[in-house]
């Protein structure tokens, strides 16, 4: 069973607020990912990291930023939330020595009013 956690599970916030979505994994995986997914739609990769101090932008442009100061922690920050940021955000991790099989967290459902 995957040990990857996301908090909060649900967040409703007003426009202009700064938010940080937390993601932690206890599996010691080097690779971590953030995806954005709207209901019934496909996964879009917005950020990934191959290890500490490594972060890259994904295939979908995003105004969010990420950091990777510790192996187990990969938070995502929005400096000024807007209604267009309303979506589900999924964090995942992978063991680089294997086949990039990804283990997903439960997701954060973000609503910006």
């Amino acid at each position, binding site marked *: 069973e995957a040990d990857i956690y996301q908090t909060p599970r649900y967040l409703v916030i007003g426009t202009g607020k700064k938010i940080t979505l937390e993601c932690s994994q206890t599996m010691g995986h080097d690779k971590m990912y953030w995806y954005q997914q709207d209901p019934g739609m*496909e*996964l879009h990769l917005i950020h990934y990291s191959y290890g500490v101090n490594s972060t890259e932008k994904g295939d979908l442009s995003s105004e969010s930023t990420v950091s990777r100061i510790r192996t187990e922690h990969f938070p995502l920050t929005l400096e000024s939330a807007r209604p267009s940021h309303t979506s589900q955000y999924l964090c*995942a991790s992978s063991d680089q020595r294997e*086949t*990039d*099989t*990804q*283990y997903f*967290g439960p997701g954060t459902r973000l609503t910006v009013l």
Partner: protein
Amino acid sequence: SQKIEQNSEALNIQEGKTATLTCNYTNYSPAYLQWYRQDPGRGPVFLLLIRENEKEKRKERLKVTFDTTLKQSLFHITASQPADSATYLCALARGFQKLVFGTGTRLLVSP
């Protein structure tokens, strides 16, 4: 351009029948292909992986085939149950490239 295609229309089947989902890809030469299950509002869960040199893989009621000539993978669920209703995603990669996910196909199993 590289593309992964899964049927965007939902697949409706009767309980007890075999569900077959298709994943086609173009302009890829994946070393392996994976299938995931996603329930509404939750993250995908890994189900099966098949490598390019494998034709077929089984796990309980699940079977995956991989045809690198046709550039296609088929995902079968035998003796389907209403609890199998979910969206199923295929994903592929080569070497240390990051995994690329398809759009998913929704499966609905009626009692």
